[in-house]
């Protein structure tokens, strides 16, 4: 059986579903016998879920507008540099 320390080391692979079947089996067996690790697994899973669900960021329209303007300015500068090499210092 896994120790609690080993359980913690393998927790990420379990949560990310990157661990192999044998590892999943050992973790699932551990949490049926260790209430603390069961709670850690459950609440860590919920931590990730709650972040994924809530932190959708909207981009303020004025920020987006300033960004596009800056890119346009950069594009003109680039074209100017490419087209008029003689004015380069």
């Amino acid at each position, binding site marked *: 059986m896994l120790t609690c320390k080993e359980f913690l080391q393998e927790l990420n692979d379990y949560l990310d579903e990157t661990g192999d079947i044998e590892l999943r089996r050992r973790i699932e067996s551990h949490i049926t016998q260790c209430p603390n690790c069961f709670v850690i697994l459950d609440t860590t899973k919920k*931590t990730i879920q709650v972040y994924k669900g809530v932190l959708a960021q909207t981009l303020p329209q004025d920020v987006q507008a300033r960004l596009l303007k800056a890119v346009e300015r950069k*594009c003109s500068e680039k074209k100017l540099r490419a087209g008029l090499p003689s004015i380069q210092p």
Partner: protein
Amino acid sequence: MPATQEAGIFDESALVAKAREGDLAAFNELVNSYSRKIFRLAKHITQNEEDAEDVLQETFLKAFEHLGDFQGQSKFYTWIVRIAVNESLMKLRKRKSDRSVPLDEPVDTGEDTVVREIAVWDENPEQKYSREELGQILDEAVQGLRPAFRTVFVLRDIEELSTEETAEALGISVPAVKSRLLRARLQLREKLTRFFKRKGDDVFAYM
């Protein structure tokens, strides 16, 4: 016709190829696709909206300027994430040397991961709070992480980059990403437990 519509799906490499030839419309399409994500990422790392806007602009201006250097071996998005992370970290370092913000408090510097508080959460913890309150709780919890942990958490669990992409974007090893992510997740879990634990479960367990 825009490259995206020809294929009916978002065709990143076609847009990048056009942008490299100087097609501003193609580049703007890339900007429109990723600006929200880059802004969110920068805001989480810098913890500041003004800095995040600077990072957002710098990222896309640098990308535009250096499109010729982009090899196409990684995805364009991973490439700009790397630029955005570097710009964000520069902002943080600059602020630290200005001493205008408090230095991050090292909460847990031990190599071993320590779990202090174990309490059962409500079935649907997010329903205890309004969306706004919840956003604030989550933001503050992330802010409490050290930048090294925060950055990995943001890239892996919010921006949903793979472990390998995160390692590439940050220039650190895959095992380093994994260990930082574990500690970030466990520290956040602990911070959130204070808000989300089920009433009556007031028992602290130590291990």
